[in-house]
C-alpha cells in the first residue's frame, strides 16, 4: 500500500524553484504510479504559484493563502504542511534542501512526528522503511540511513534530480485554511529583504555552476576576470578565505569550512591551492575544474579536469570560448 506524497513548493521571485520540481520527480518515483503526488504551496500570493504547480505533473494542489505566512515564518508553514499532510493522508513530505527546506523538515519531524533526513541524494523504499543516501563531512564521506516509518520528511539536495516534463492537463487546486498558531511563534518579523549580496546572477547556495577565485587572482581589481567567466556561464561567484580575508570580496562569497558549502554540477576553482578547509565546502560538487599555475597544487588531486597555467591568460581565453559556444 502506498499513501500520497506531498511536495512542498518553495517560491522565489513569484515562481516555483527548480529544487521543488526535482521533488516531484522523486515523489513520482516513490509513488510508483500507485499513489498521487500532491503539491502544496503557502503564502498570500500562493494562488498564482498554485496555477504553475498544477501544470508540472502533480495530481492536485493544496494551497493556503494566509497573509500570516508572508513574513516567511517557516514555523507557520510547517503547521500548515502538517495539517495538509493529514488532510490528504500523505505518508511522505518532500521539499527542496534549501535553507527553507531544511528548516521545514526539522520542524515537521517534530510537528508531524516523522523520521527525517536532509541533503538526500538517493531514496529507496523497502518495506516500511526508506533508505536514503546523503553526503556528510563536507562531501568527504557518504552515509546511508534507514528511516523508520510510518511517516517521512525529506529535504532533497538541490541540483541532484531531473525536473519533470510539463503536464498536458492542469490538475485541480484546493484551498485550505491556515491552522491557528502558538503565539510564541509570532514574536519575530522580517523588516527587510536585500538582494543577494553576491551581486547579479544566481546566489552561491543555489547555483548549478560556481566559479571561485583564490589568492592567485592577486588583487580585488583582478577579480573581474573571475566574474566575467561566471557571467558567461550563468554561474555564481565564490572565493577562498584568502580572498575574503584580504577584503577583495565580502565574506558572503566564501566557500569552505567557515563559509558556505556548495554542491553545484560544476565548480571551477581558479588560483585556489585546495586547502582542506576550502575543499570541505565544495567536494560534493559533481564536476570540479582547477586552473592553477602550480602543477603540484592539492586542488588537482580532487579535480576532474585541470589546466596548469597562468590564470591571467587562461581566464580570458576560457570566457571568450564559452561566449562563443553559447552564442553570447
Amino acid at each position: 500500500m502506498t499513501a500520497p506524497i506531498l511536495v512542498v513548493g518553495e517560491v522565489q521571485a513569484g515562481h516555483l524553484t527548480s529544487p521543488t520540481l526535482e521533488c516531484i520527480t522523486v515523489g513520482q518515483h516513490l509513488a510508483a504510479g500507485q499513489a498521487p503526488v500532491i503539491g502544496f504551496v503557502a503564502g498570500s500570493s500562493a494562488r498564482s504559484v498554485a496555477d504553475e504547480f498544477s501544470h508540472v505533473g502533480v495530481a492536485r494542489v493544496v494551497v493556503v493563502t494566509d497573509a500570516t505566512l508572508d513574513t516567511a515564518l517557516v514555523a507557520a508553514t510547517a503547521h500548515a504542511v502538517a495539517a495538509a499532510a493529514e488532510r490528504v493522508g500523505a505518508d511522505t513530505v518532500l521539499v527542496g534542501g534549501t535553507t527553507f527546506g531544511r528548516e521545514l523538515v526539522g520542524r515537521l519531524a517534530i510537528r508531524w512526528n516523522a523520521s527525517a533526513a536532509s541533503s538526500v541524494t538517493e531514496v529507496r523504499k523497502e518495506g516500511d522503511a526508506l533508505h536514503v543516501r546523503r553526503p556528510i563531512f563536507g562531501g568527504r564521506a557518504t552515509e546511508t540511513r534507514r528511516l523508520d516509518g510510518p511517516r517521512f520528511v525529506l529535504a532533497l539536495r538541490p541540483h541532484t534530480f531531473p525536473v519533470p516534463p510539463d503536464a498536458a492537463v492542469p490538475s485541480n487546486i484546493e484551498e485550505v485554511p491556515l491552522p491557528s498558531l502558538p503565539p510564541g511563534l509570532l514574536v519575530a518579523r522580517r523588516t527587510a529583504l536585500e538582494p543577494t549580496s553576491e551581486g547579479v546572477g544566481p546566489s552561491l547556495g543555489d547555483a548549478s555552476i560556481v566559479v571561485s577565485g583564490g589568492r592567485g587572482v592577486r588583487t580585488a581589481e583582478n577579480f573581474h576576470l573571475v566574474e566575467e567567466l561566471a557571467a558567461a556561464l550563468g554561474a555564481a561567484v565564490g572565493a577562498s578565505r584568502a580572498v575574503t580575508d584580504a577584503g577583495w570580496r565580502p565574506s558572503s562569497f566564501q566557500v569552505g569550512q567557515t563559509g558556505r558549502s556548495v554542491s553545484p554540477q560544476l565548480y571551477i576553482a581558479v588560483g585556489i591551492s585546495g586547502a582542506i578547509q576550502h575543499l570541505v565546502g565544495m567536494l560534493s560538487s559533481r564536476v570540479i575544474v582547477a586552473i592553477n599555475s602550480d602543477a603540484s597544487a592539492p586542488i588537482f588531486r580532487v579535480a576532474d579536469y585541470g589546466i596548469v597555467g597562468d590564470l591571467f591568460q587562461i581566464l580570458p581565453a576560457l570566457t571568450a570560448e564559452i561566449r562563443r559556444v553559447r552564442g553570447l
Partner: protein
Amino acid sequence: MEIVVCLKPVPEAETRLRAATDGRALDSEGVKFVLAGYDESALEQALLLKESIAGSRVHAVSYGPGPRTEEVLRAAIALGADLATWVEAPPGTALDPIAAARALAAAITSVPHDLILCGKQAGDDEAGLVPPALGELLSLPEFSSVVDLRWDAGTSRFRFLRSTEEGGERWESSGPCVMGLQQAWNDPRTAKLPNILRSRKATIARRPLEPVPAGPRSESERFELPAPRTGARMIEYKTPAEAAQQLVRLLREEAKVFP
C-alpha cells in the same frame, strides 16, 4: 540575558576518515573531537552578546557520550561560558539529529533561556535539523543561516541578518528564538592558558538522558568514502585558446555539465 548555546563535539577537520569495521559509521578510534566550525561561531556570538549586555550569562549545552562531550564543554568554559550542562548519552549511541533535539530540548526547558544559539549544521552529519526541531519542541521561532546578530537595548529587540538563497533577510524579534549561525564572520577567540587550567575544575551539570518517547527513528547503516578521484585529467595545450577549447569540449561532451 540568559543565552544558551548548543555545542556538538565533532572530529577535527584534519581527521582521516575511515569506516568502522561494521561499515555503518565513522571509526572514531583515535579520532580527536573538538569544538569546531559553526558551533565555534555560535559560541563566539554568545560571548559577544554577553559582553554587550550587563548581567548576561552563557550556558553551554551538549548531548553526547563521554569523554568528548565533557571536553567540549570544558573548552567552552575556558572560552568564557558561565555554565555547562552535559546530557549524557551512553557510549556508542549513534546520534540522530531529531533524537539530539529532543534530548537538548528537555535540558533547555529546565533552565532559563532568552536566546538559543546553535551552529547552522554540525561539522559531521551536516543535517541542519537540530535548530528547527528545537524551535518546534520549544514552540519558538527558528532562524537558520544567521550571519549577524545584535541586541538593540533601546527597543529590547534582537536584530539579525540571515543569508538565504534569496539574499539577505533582516529580522527583528521581541522574544526568544532559536538560531543556527552560519559563519565565522566573528573570528572566534582562543582560550587563555589560565582559563584553560581553571576550566578543568569547573562544575559541569550532568543530566541523564530521559527515556526518549517511542517515535520515528533513523539510523546510519552504511558509511562510505567516495572512490578516490583519480586525479585531474590534465589538459595539454600550446596556447590558452587551445586549452579553453579543449576544456569546454570536455565539459560539454564528456562531463555533460552544459549543452
